[in-house]
């Protein structure tokens, strides 16, 4: 691997230090010091990242791309730090900057920096100013750690770290009532986000454990060299199922659906909008939620080994894209619409990486970070202007009053709707094209068409609901009440400048990744050493049929045609939205909604998925918890077991207390009885004997009976008499404990022993049957 040593750790460390300072002493610093520290640390990380990328990584990349495919991945490594070393586990915390992580670092620090700047305006009146920037910095540092980690364990540290920051920031206004529920709704939303993510993390951890137990490493570079182990068959209970790669890929995918808000674990993201809007922009749109996409692209060499699971990834993505978009139709909270749109766009990214178009997925991640951050920040600017109101039914007519916000919002809307030549068009279209032109072995031939159809339908929805949002918010007459309308004003430059920069990015960045028929795809070219690695490795494994281009792929005419189709679709969506919503909801809308009341209600209520999860999972689990506590813990173990045994001791104690009543006569009676019992017991004659050699004998065979063992060692005078039960008279009384007898006829005989000592005679309790054959 052509690599050099560079102190990459400064990239995450700068924001982390900023976080530490702001959280520890921020309350004592001035606001100016707080935001200089916060913005400065992210800017520092951005600069270090750019320096490392352009000065060190670019020459390596160039050399590698000259060497052609199969060359080693260009990367900069930071000296690893030994984190957990125990037994066979040796986790070295190494950082790695390769083309993929360079893109991520740039996106995070650049968009992150703009959002930090924006926040200085947006949060300027908040009393938790230092806390806010502390969390934001902590988030940036964790996210950078996530994308720079060269090891799944390090990635997981960042993965959980961003989860915690998300939790903290969703609940940032911990004492505010939510929009729907009173009390601690914001904190509940944070908790929901964290726990839903943890459900995904549970699978993620199992995936890591599986990979580690099979390959002995979690280092991503080393893992990619262990194709052989990854292809071993996973056989629980001896049932041979599928390759380890498939199981691990599926488990990691579940982790990714948690973090990246995909079906079935997407439910936390809409609620996460309870956090301050810059947080929604940075964490719940631009960066954190894309971690799952990044992870799959990073581990492309695992997914390429298992086309079946790739199909699952693609299907999850396509389904989520359409599903979330339809919910977006019926939402009226400006941030909720954007939240569902984020889920939907993340679905596109999953679709992209699922069909093996890793660079397309990451490209959409990249452009989405710009236009969605711009949309969220624009929404923040609107909310700021509307005195905190978020319901788009109360907005309208903001175009004139918020010119910059409106213009940047419009650009981003065009970008997300996929209008040429804005960035969203190129990135989305590449995914759609790859979806239809890639054959996934193990899935039917119509599968690409299905994926494409879902994606195209989602594109239509996207254009429609985004422009519904736009027209309701900005066009027509203001529907706000008097006081709110009076306060409407454009936001300060600290907030509008980031909007302008992001909108510019949303407009032009698409040119980095032109479709194959138009020109060079610089973006794919840059990522190729990383994202093509999986395909190269998969090609070396004979047992699998890799994901590859299908018949359509080479057909330029079809590619142009489909491009035109998606453009048309987007335009139709926009025009319909304009027809229905320009100047507020028209009567046509009411008629339409009235025509499909059930469907509309279902979408408005998010198809009751939250309620279904509640009834299916949460309530039963909570019930089980309470039942275990009351029934098992308190009743069975403690009341019956512990206190029950104590009660028995108590009762026995009370009863035996009566014996200790001080009456000497009684004591004497008890004493005498006791002694008598002992005497009887000790002197009771033996009543057991053995039959030798066995109780089953032949006719004529001598059998001996032995009662001597019973009293071995005791000095007592006893006499024995045996009755063999075959008609012969009993033996004479004799002091020897052993007798011998020969049975002369077949049959079963009962042998009895009588024992006599000076005091009493007994018969043996044990009567042994002897079977004579």
């Amino acid at each position, binding site marked *: 691997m052509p690599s050099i040593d560079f102190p990459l750790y400064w990239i995450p460390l700068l924001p982390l230090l900023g976080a530490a300072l702001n959280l520890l002493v921020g309350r004592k610093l001035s606001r100016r010091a707080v935001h200089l520290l916060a913005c400065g640390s992210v800017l520092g990380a951005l600069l270090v990242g750019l320096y490392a990328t352009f000065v060190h990584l670019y020459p390596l990349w160039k050399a590698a791309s000259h060497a052609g495919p199969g060359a080693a991945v260009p990367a900069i490594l930071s000296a690893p730090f030994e*984190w957990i070393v125990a037994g066979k586990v040796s986790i070295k915390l190494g950082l790695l900057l390769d083309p993929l992580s360079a893109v991520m670092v740039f996106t995070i620090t650049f968009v992150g920096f703009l959002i930090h700047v924006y926040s200085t305006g947006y949060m300027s009146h908040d009393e938790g100013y230092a806390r806010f920037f502390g969390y934001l910095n902590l988030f940036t540092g964790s996210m950078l750690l996530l994308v720079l980690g060269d090891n799944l364990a390090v990635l997981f540290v960042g993965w959980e770290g961003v989860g915690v920051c998300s939790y903290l920031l969703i609940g940032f206004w911990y004492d505010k009532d939510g929009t729907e529920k009173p009390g601690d709704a914001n904190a509940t939303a944070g908790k929901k986000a964290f726990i839903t993510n943890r459900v995904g993390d549970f699978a993620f951890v199992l995936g890591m454990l599986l990979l580690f137990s099979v390959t002995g490493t979690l280092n991503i570079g080393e893992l990619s060299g262990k194709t052989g182990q990854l292809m071993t068959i996973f056989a629980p209970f001896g049932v041979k199922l599928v390759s380890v790669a498939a199981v691990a890929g599926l488990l990691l995918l579940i982790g990714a659906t948690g973090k990246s808000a995909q079906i079935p674990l997407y439910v936390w993201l809409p609620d996460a909008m309870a956090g301050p809007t810059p947080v929604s922009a940075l964490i719940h749109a631009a960066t954190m939620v894309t971690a799952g996409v990044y992870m799959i692209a990073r581990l492309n060499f695992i997914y390429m080994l298992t086309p079946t699971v790739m199909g699952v990834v693609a299907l999850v993505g396509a389904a989520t894209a359409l599903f979330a978009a339809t919910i977006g139709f019926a939402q009226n909270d400006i941030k909720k619409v954007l939240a569902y749109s984020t889920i939907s766009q993340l679905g596109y990214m999953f679709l992209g990486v699922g069909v093996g178009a890793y660079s397309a997925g990451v490209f959409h991640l990249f452009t989405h970070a710009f236009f969605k951050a711009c949309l969220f920040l624009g929404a923040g600017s609107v909310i700021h202007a509307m005195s905190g109101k978020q319901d788009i039914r109360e907005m309208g007519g903001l175009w004139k009053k918020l010119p910059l916000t409106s213009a940047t919002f419009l650009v981003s809307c065009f970008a997300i709707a996929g209008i040429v030549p804005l960035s969203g068009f190129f990135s989305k279209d590449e995914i759609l094209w790859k979806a239809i032109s890639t054959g996934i072995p193990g899935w039917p031939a119509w599968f690409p068409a299905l994926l494409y159809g879902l994606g195209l339908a989602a594109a239509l929805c996207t254009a429609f609901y985004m422009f519904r949002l736009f027209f309701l918010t900005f066009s027509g007459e203001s529907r706000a009440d008097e006081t709110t309308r009076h306060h409407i004003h454009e936001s300060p430059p600290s907030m509008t400048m980031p909007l302008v920069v992001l909108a510019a990015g949303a407009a032009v960045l698409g040119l980095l990744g032109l479709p194959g028929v138009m020109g060079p795809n610089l973006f794919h070219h840059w990522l190729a050493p990383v994202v093509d690695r999986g395909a190269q490795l998969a090609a070396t494994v004979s047992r699998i049929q890799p994901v590859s281009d299908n018949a359509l792929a080479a057909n330029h005419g079809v590619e142009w045609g489909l491009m035109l189709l998606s453009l048309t679709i987007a335009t139709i969506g926009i025009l319909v939205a304009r027809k229905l919503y320009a100047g507020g909801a028209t009567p046509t809308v009411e008629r339409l909604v009235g025509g499909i009341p059930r469907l509309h209600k279902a979408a408005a209520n998010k198809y009751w998925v939250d309620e279904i999860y509640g009834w299916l999972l949460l309530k039963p689990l909570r019930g089980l918890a309470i039942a275990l506590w009351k029934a098992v813990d308190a009743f069975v173990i403690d009341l019956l077991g512990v206190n029950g045994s104590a009660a028995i001791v108590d009762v026995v104690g009370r009863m035996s207390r009566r014996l200790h009543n001080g009456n000497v006569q009684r004591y004497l009676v008890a004493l005498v009885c006791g002694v008598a019992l002992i005497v009887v017991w000790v002197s009771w004659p033996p009543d057991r004997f053995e039959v030798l050699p066995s109780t089953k004998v032949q006719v004529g065979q001598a059998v001996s009976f032995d009662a001597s063992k019973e009293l071995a060692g005791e000095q007592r005078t006893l006499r024995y008499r045996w009755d063999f039960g075959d008609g012969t008279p009993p033996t004479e009384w004799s002091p020897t404990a052993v007798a011998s007898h020969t049975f002369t006829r077949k049959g079963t005989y009962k042998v009895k022993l009588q024992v006599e000592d000076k005091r009493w005679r007994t018969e043996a309790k044990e009567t042994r049957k002897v079977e004579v054959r």
Partner: protein
Amino acid sequence: MLLTIILAIPLLGAIVVALMPKHEETGCRHMGMFFSLATFATSLGLIAAFKPVEGAMQLSLKLPWIKSLGVSFHVGVDGISLWLVLLTTFLTPIVILSAYKHIAKKVKEFIVSMLVLEVGMIGAFVALDLFLFYVFWEIMLVPMYLIIGIWGHERKVYAAIKFVIYTMLGSLLMLVAIIYLYITHGRATGDYTFDYMVLSQSVWSEQAQLWLFAAFALAFAIKVPMFPLHTWLPDAHVEAPTAGSVILAGVLLKLGTYGFLRFAIPMFPWAAAAYAPYISWLAVIGIVYGALVAWAQKDAKKLVAYSSVSHLGFVMLGLMAMTTTGIQGGIYQMVSHGLSTGGLFLAIGVLYDRRHTRLLAQFGGLWKRLPVFAGLFMIVMLSSAGLPGLNGFVGEFLILVGAFTHHGEMAQAGLPYFIWHSRIVTAVAATGVVLGAVYLLHLYQKLMFGPIQNVQNRELEDLSPREVWTFVPLVVLIFIMGIYPKPFLSRMEQAVALFLREYKVKFQASEGYREALPKRLPDLGYRTPKTIAPVKLGMGGER
């Protein structure tokens, strides 16, 4: 010698404080603080004197005590006990400091109890003579009984008695087993001794091991506590004063898991293997059950108490995995659980001092009034939830890896698998990751988030400097152990490796052994320290 000094300082402190006048309450507190800090400072010397490359017992000292019975004062540390000793000496001053205000009556007696308790705990961790161990083990009960019974809350007497009887039940059986070991070993070799180093060089028959292990394991399982023997714990925690809860969760519970690791498993390896499937299932049940029941609690302290059942389940799973990774993870988790759960109990104590209630419903929105407390509590809470970067994750992760790779490692070592389908067991255990977040976030939200609804919470004071200082050492260590666990792990590694090597030898020696008296193994060499004079080998002497 160092160990003896570490044992002597708190004992001396207890004597000094006992001789002080009763009304000198502040003086007693300061004196207790001084002696516990001196103990901690001295115990830091252990790290310096400890050789990480050595797996055997170090710094050991053996003095004859009751010669006619073969009892000796034999102490030593290895990588397994080192950090537990330090955890004890680290937590004791924090606990004494935390009790400066809320222990207002019988202060002198309280300080004496604490110092005696410290002697007992350290002693139990370093004792290498079964008799001595038993003495320390029982000594601990007395001050803990007093702490719960005198300074506790409403149902303190019930809780104290329950605690003592539960623990006694197990330890009496252990005593019987110890005496059995003493007699049979004496008969077999002519060497009547309680010395663990000598006794552990013999193996007992399969049948005997099953009984002996059961007797030891019962005592330890109650202490851990393992499901279903855990019901003394919530009561003891809820009724104990904060200081008692911190020590109880922080150190006392670890004596159970330590006991498994030091005595029950190495002395009866065959039985350990035979019971391992059941123990590991009980451990996993404990993880899930403890977490769910914790979630159902209305009392904050009870919630934290049940979380211990869950966390200690992880420790037991790690120990039963019999892999270096799992056992190291188990030891690491013991120490880090001491810090994080100690911290949680301190936090509940802070609230109790202010409001004299622990019910979740009584709180809410406290962040507004107690921001410093909120931050510290948040870190402690996340550490308990196993957040990577904080201490809890390292142990949990190693335990999961250790248990998950159990099959492979055992096959490699030529030993049978003990855990039935270790991957499934591990997967069930890993649900603890989700459930842990559920109950801890529930706890934090109910206490800290939302608007302040209860009028009584409007005027609460944030932490005093003294209270801040009870948290700071914990939080600092939480970060250190999460970010840089290497110094801790590297000092355990050799001892654990040795433990497993020896375990394998002993397991193979005892497999198929059916004689009534134990057989002495050829000198395993590495564990026996040089201070012990070689004993005569009288194989099967009286048989």
